């Protein structure tokens, strides 16, 4: 979801055709566990990163610096499209890469598949330089570490400054303001072209990768909701249907189903590929997304026409979706070299490279290394100061430590997308979702009672 998160369905369609056409067998083989070899196998280190556009260049800069230092060659692979799909296929073929850079939210998914190694922090050079908080999304419920944090971020509100000015509106400060601005953007022709062809709010509402609930989470937490309640002893109960949860979904659904409908009409099938485009081309005027989108948006016609502000607080306070990008050590044949690369990627040098080497691709958004400061690295762009501040003040992580958060997020997305598609009873939908989440918690072995 991080990066300039996107989906392009075409490659997936081809991959799927191969998978499904052969009755799936090509997607799996045999069983067994590689175990940890004592010495590394020969050959280049295979490294996958979920990245597209200019981001691969930034990763390559880090890899090159690493190769120069250590002599270890790297065979990189980059894709944004269906990254986890390809990883699943690689796992099924017992041909995993040695190291993977992907969202922290995938931790449980990877761990459940048994494709990542546990990380021994005491043996990881530079582990002590990382912000203690950044480790939170790299460990499971028992506190055991399964990844190394690489970058962090929190969503901000991107809003069309020129539209606000034309309509004589000010920046939204509350939920009511967000609603009012969204309505004005939809009905008052903010681009002045004489046509009713603009929308207030840009939402990737597809169920792919759990987009819709990922996006809604900000409002859910702003209302004061939480997905789960800790019942002690590592057990949890779902609480998505709490009054704040219901309030936030009702409000969110109103954006789609109220009068006027203020979300772009293709939303429920859209991923961030489409929503980025909608914001870039002046279809939508407000978009909650991460600081990685500075580069995406500045590379388009919308540059200079939008501003970035802290997400307006909801009835339950100021919260916004925070996310981490992790380095995962895979069950490959080169564990020592992989760990060396991971150690390099969290150094001051690599973190700086990731932030500034390629201006159009900030693969390290907010650094995890405490000796690096994003605001001073991006001196010319004070939006990074805001990004850092919002992350610190409002950042709220998804419960990525659950045994398999992606499965829970997917269930939430399916439920949200379905009820909004019908403009149905949002309260009842959340009650049903709560039951479903409790069932999933039971399947994952962490349900209370």
């Amino acid at each position, binding site marked *: 979801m991080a990066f300039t998160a996107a989906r392009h369905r075409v490659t*997936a369609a081809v991959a*799927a055709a191969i998978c499904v056409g052969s009755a799936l*067998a090509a997607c799996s083989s045999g069983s067994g*566990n590689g175990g940890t070899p004592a010495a590394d196998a020969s050959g280049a280190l295979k490294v996958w990163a979920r990245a597209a556009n200019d981001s691969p260049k930034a990763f390559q800069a880090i890899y090159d610096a690493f190769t120069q230092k250590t002599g270890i060659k790297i065979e990189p692979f980059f894709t944004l499209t269906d990254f986890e799909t390809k990883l699943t296929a690689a796992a099924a073929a*017992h041909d995993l890469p040695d190291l993977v850079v992907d969202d922290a939210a995938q931790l449980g998914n990877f761990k459940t598949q*048994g494709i990542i190694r546990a990380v021994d922090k005491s043996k990881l050079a530079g582990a002590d330089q990382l912000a203690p908080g950044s480790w939170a999304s790299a460990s499971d419920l028992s506190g055991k570490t399964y990844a190394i944090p690489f970058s962090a971020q929190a969503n901000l509100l991107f809003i069309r400054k020129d539209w606000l000015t034309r309509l004589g509106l000010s920046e939204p400060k509350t939920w009511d303001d967000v609603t009012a601005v969204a309505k004005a953007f939809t009905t008052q022709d903010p681009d002045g072209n004489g046509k009713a062809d603009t929308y207030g709010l840009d939402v990737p*509402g597809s169920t792919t990768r759990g987009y819709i609930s990922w996006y809604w989470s900000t409002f859910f937490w702003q209302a004061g909701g939480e997905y789960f309640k800790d019942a002690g002893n590592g057990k949890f109960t779902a609480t998505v249907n709490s009054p704040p949860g219901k309030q936030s979904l009702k409000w969110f659904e109103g954006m789609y189903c109220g009068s006027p409908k203020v979300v772009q*009409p*293709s939303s429920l099938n859209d991923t961030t590929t489409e929503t980025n485009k909608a914001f870039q081309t002046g279809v939508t005027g407000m978009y909650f997304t991460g600081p990685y989108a500075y580069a995406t948006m500045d590379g388009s016609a919308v540059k200079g026409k939008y501003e970035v502000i802290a997400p307006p607080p909801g009835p339950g306070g100021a919260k916004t979706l925070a996310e981490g990008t992790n380095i995962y050590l895979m069950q490959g044949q080169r564990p020592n070299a992989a760990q060396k690369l991971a150690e390099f990627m969290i150094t001051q040098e690599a973190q700086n490279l990731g932030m500034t080497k390629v201006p159009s691709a900030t693969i390290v958004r907010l650094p995890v290394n405490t000796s690096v400061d994003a605001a001073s690295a991006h001196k010319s762009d004070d939006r990074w100061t805001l990004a850092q501040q919002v992350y610190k003040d409002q950042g709220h992580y998804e419960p990525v430590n659950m045994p398999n958060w992606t499965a829970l997020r997917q269930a939430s997305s399916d439920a949200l997308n379905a009820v909004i*598609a019908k403009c149905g009873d949002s309260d009842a939908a959340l009650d049903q979702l709560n039951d479903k989440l409790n069932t999933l918690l039971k399947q994952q072995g962490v349900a209370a009672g």
Partner: protein
Amino acid sequence: MSALRTSAAPVALPAQRDRSGSRRTVPQRLGRSLTPWLFLAPALIFFGVFKFWPSIWGVYLSLFHVQPYLGDQWLGAANFTRTLDDPDLQAAVWHTVLDAFVQVAGSMLVGFVLALLLEGPARHLRILRTAVFLPAVIAMVAVAELWHALLFPGRYGAVNSLLGDVGLGPLPFLASPNSSLWTIMLVQIWKHAPYDMVIFIAGLVGIDRELYEQCSIDGANAWQRLWNVTLPALRPITTIVLILGLIRGLRVFTEIYVLTGGGPGGSTESIVTYVYRNVVVNNDIGYAAAISALLLAATILLTAVTLWWRRHRENA
């Protein structure tokens, strides 16, 4: 059908010669019987590696909870019994069957009308036929991407902008669960109808012209000629195109995946997109394999019934 019979003849000939030429040595005879297999070998090896073996392996996997790095767990028939109690799968089956029927019937109807309009030797008809046939040769992924852009549900989508000019819309098309599946069917018909047209034109050309003349002499009008001569003569082609289309329709994936990804609200989920979701989203390879195995069984059954029925009719 006649083509099948003629192609069978040369195969029969060497066998007869073999029987008469008993002077041939054993290696010679062996060589003769092996030759056709040698010619078939590349295709057989290809299908074996990429189709047959994966299919068998897939059926085997359907008996497990598949975890490549943790070891597969034997489940027996549990994945199969689960399919009986899965409302999402049932919805997907319903969408698939409905889609198969409507798009196949729609494509045939449009294809037939196009064939009637565009049959003939005139040069301008040839150009028109080529133009009309183009959608059939474009890859489905490209077609779907194209329509995805054209059908944007807002006022500035190309189709909605045209509708707006005549005072209609904007229609939601793929964005509403009420219209999404029907919109996909329209795209499928747009793509498949020209192909059916070509088959129908071939059929029309094969109809004995004398029948039309006789009809005219008997005073039949155009409608009666169509009803009493053209349609009966096209019946064999029609049935086979229909049934093969339905069988193919069960595997619908590309256009749905590209256009809607199965949404909104699961309203366009088909059997194969559901299988895909189970593999890549839920990592539930065993369950997906079980659904695939059932789909394979249904396809084989349908094909067998079709073949039996054709033979039955031809013999009758």
